[in-house]
């Protein structure tokens, strides 16, 4: 009977899994039967660099990150596109210029929106 071509691979796979699991299992058994278990209110508490943790960890908070994302788009990403646009302006076709102007218009719209929302004034 010819050997299955995958026999070695499977044997090695089993060996590899056993190699990983055996020390973990031994550690588990050791912890179960020999380790000095001394739980307490302080030890079971959340580790906060020695301070007591206050409140619940499951809170929602308003990140307001999208505001920064929009401002970033207007002032940073737009500038990156404006520079090559300005350099290549004289050689552009009508279609490309209109596409760029539409892009600018969209971002200017965002700028007006942010301005109206009062994002550009220091809080």
């Amino acid at each position: 009977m010819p050997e299955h071509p995958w026999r070695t691979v499977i044997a090695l796979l089993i060996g590899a899994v056993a190699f990983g699991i055996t020390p973990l299992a031994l550690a588990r058994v050791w912890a179960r039967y020999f380790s000095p278990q001394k739980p307490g209110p302080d030890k079971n508490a959340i580790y906060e660099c020695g301070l007591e943790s206050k409140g619940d960890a499951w809170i929602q908070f308003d990140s307001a990150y999208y505001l920064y994302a929009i401002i970033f788009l207007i002032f940073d990403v737009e500038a990156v596109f404006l520079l090559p646009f300005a350099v290549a302006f004289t050689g552009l076709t009508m279609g490309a210029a209109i596409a760029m102007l539409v892009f600018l218009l969209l971002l200017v719209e965002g700028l007006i929106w942010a301005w109206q929302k009062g994002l550009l004034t220091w809080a």
Partner: protein
Amino acid sequence: MEQELKDLKVELQKQGIFTTTLEEIYNWGRKNSVWPLTFGLACCAIEMIATSMARYDIARFGAEVFRPSPRQADLMIVAGTVTKKMAPQVVRLYNQMPEPKYVIAMGACAISGGPFRDGYNVLKGIDRYVPVDVHIPGCPPRPEALLHAFITLQKKIDAQQLRGEGRAHHLKADTPSEYPVPDFGSHDLEPTHNDEVFPPKPESPFKVLP
């Protein structure tokens, strides 16, 4: 009986046969892999950092793995001035370490308050709240002094028993693993010390005349 066993061991060693006990091998493993807590309070911490670096190389003793969490640490090196503001946190960190755990109080401040002893805000030694295994004097102690303290601790670990009445603290089920964390009072920490680890001074045989 014990002496006979020791003699037998020596005799066997002379013949090239080495014997050991479970206790010895357990303590040998423990004392050579003491992981300290990454934890420095003041200038002594700089000496502690120097000890962990190449020149003094605490890795020679298996203690180079400074852990950033008390959950994985065996040793707390109290390196520096413990202010009263900081004392509850130090005690809480000690409480959060798993057994077996050890404490080295490093430097004059950690053992007694040092030059700031008379300050209203300085704790006069961390041994008022947690059991300290080794005290190191010095301001600050040199890295060699910390290494010496560490070797002293290793000897202490090596001598700990696994069973019997005199077995190690962490193997007794009823001894506490946590000590009360002091609160901020109106003038001082409350309580000002823990009687369990810091017994009151014995009364002096000399009397002060009125």
